[in-house]
């Protein structure tokens, strides 16, 4: 009887020691893992303001936001129509054009292919715009339309729309 309770006592001590040890080790490892996440100053570099008054219809500019390229395009009438008339069932990642813009003529996108992170072509007038008249990623052949939606190729999602707002008619704040 005495021996039995002694064994239970040992089991309890062993189990609790191992548990505390495991929790302690995990708690010790956490700061090391966490230190690899973006630092405070990296997170703080969050917003960019852009003056878009010089952009003509049909032109695009590329600005840098959080180290990534952001495409700002003043779309033509044809491009807007093209983007609005697409049948949702033709889309890999269905999204209405109205949900992707704040003003019809201004399209703001993160210029990073959702496949493996290359910068798609289509910003310069001489670039290939792909089969859907938007952007074309040369790395692995993804085609985006005039709303930056994925239409063909390996990319799984549409080009992301960053958080942005119009401070007035000509200044966009990204972030």
């Amino acid at each position: 009887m005495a021996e039995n309770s002694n064994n239970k006592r040992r089991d309890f001590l062993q189990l609790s020691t191992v548990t505390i040890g495991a929790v302690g080790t995990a708690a010790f490892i956490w700061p090391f893992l966490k230190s690899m996440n973006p630092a405070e100053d990296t997170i703080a570099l969050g917003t960019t303001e852009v003056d878009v008054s010089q952009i003509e219809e049909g032109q695009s500019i590329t600005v840098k936001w959080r180290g990534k390229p952001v495409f700002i395009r003043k779309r033509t009438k044809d491009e807007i129509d093209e983007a609005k008339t697409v049948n949702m069932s033709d889309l890999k990642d269905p999204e209405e054009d109205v949900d992707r813009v704040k003003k019809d003529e201004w399209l703001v996108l993160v210029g990073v292919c959702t496949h493996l992170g290359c910068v798609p072509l289509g910003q310069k007038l001489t670039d290939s715009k792909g089969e859907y008249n938007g952007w074309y990623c040369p790395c692995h052949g993804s085609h985006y339309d005039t709303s930056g939606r994925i239409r063909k190729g390996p990319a799984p999602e549409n080009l992301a729309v960053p958080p942005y707002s119009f401070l007035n008619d000509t200044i966009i704040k990204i972030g």
Partner: protein
Amino acid sequence: MSGNSEPRKYKNPVLNWIEFRLPIISYFEKEYGDYPMPKNCNYFWSFGALATITLVTMIVSGIFLAMNYTPHTEMAFDSVERIMRDVNYGWLLRYIHSNGAAFFFIIVYIHIVRGMYYGSYKYPRELNWILGVFIYLLMMATSFLGYTLPWGQMSYWGATVITNLFSAIPFIGEGLKTWLLGDYTVGNATLNRFFALHYVLPFVIFGVVGLHVAAVHVHGSNNPAGIDIRSKNDTVNFFPYMLIKDTIAVCVFGVLISAVIFFGPNLMAEVDNYIPADPLVTPAHIVPNWYLAPFYAILRAVPDKLGGVALMFGAIAILFVLPWLDTSKVRSCNFRPMYKWFMMLFFVNFFVLGYVGMLPAEGLYLLIARVGLVYYFGFFLIITPFVGWIEKPKTLPASISDVYLGGGKESPLPASQNEIH
């Protein structure tokens, strides 16, 4: 003197003193002096030694490069150019290191081909094979990290594409990617940690190589006939026979790598990496290093992001279970009339995958990559188990010595070599 009670194994008293306290002398004697090597081993058996020597060369040249390299996005590219132009013999150190990496992979690929063709991965050397695949994985990680350091266009975009592979993982992918990068894109935090990891991983590789060698020495080396050692007559001592043989291999290797370092140092380099990294412009063609290209071809052959990533990692992971996929008891392909040709085709297929992995993924190249992908997995999952069941192997020689008496075709040495014993 307290030495009276100590055993006197060696003539040299210093060696005896050390041996009594740490039996390291007898360890080296056993593992590298008297270690019995099958006497029919051909020059394929020199590639393990070559790989070890290359690893040491890479570590040494890397340490000296690190003395002049600056891991900062603003300064990395220029510091590499300074190594090339201003640091004494900096160009030599860098070309040894960059070409050494390529040759390291050539050697290790030949070493793997040796292991596969002669069935070195089979019982009782499975763990040895697993450790080898680990080394190969660590090498791929290390070379990828190192390729980022010069901070050229290929460095930057290679790092972007590879780290984006992790974003394919459902739910945690995006967070994992940011955690790996330490930023929202490849940036200074990324370069810093890649440098730290590139410095430390080779020492990890060195440790695993130690286990890999220790493991092979437990049951002894395999040989071209793939049969076990039966008597002392089947072997020669590592010293001096294999040491001399390996030394010749090292000399030939030295001539080859020197020819590249001095006359074609950029043969295996990408021109685009001499353009400083630009986060706003992607090069038209992102190409991996040729030694990783077969896996890149597999990634691009699949028209789905997660699927491509899964198959690419699967292509490496499947190597771990090869010992259990192979159902044949016969080790050497010399005695496996069917599997031999499937094996040869596998090597050719891997080479072709690497070739199309360097070319744009479109049209015929894409088709070839898809066929290659099917054969790659088909070889492991279907051909390897089934051929093992249906194939009738040739008669194995009774012993390694018999290989010479019976005039076995696979014998690389003339029969007169037998007279040594």
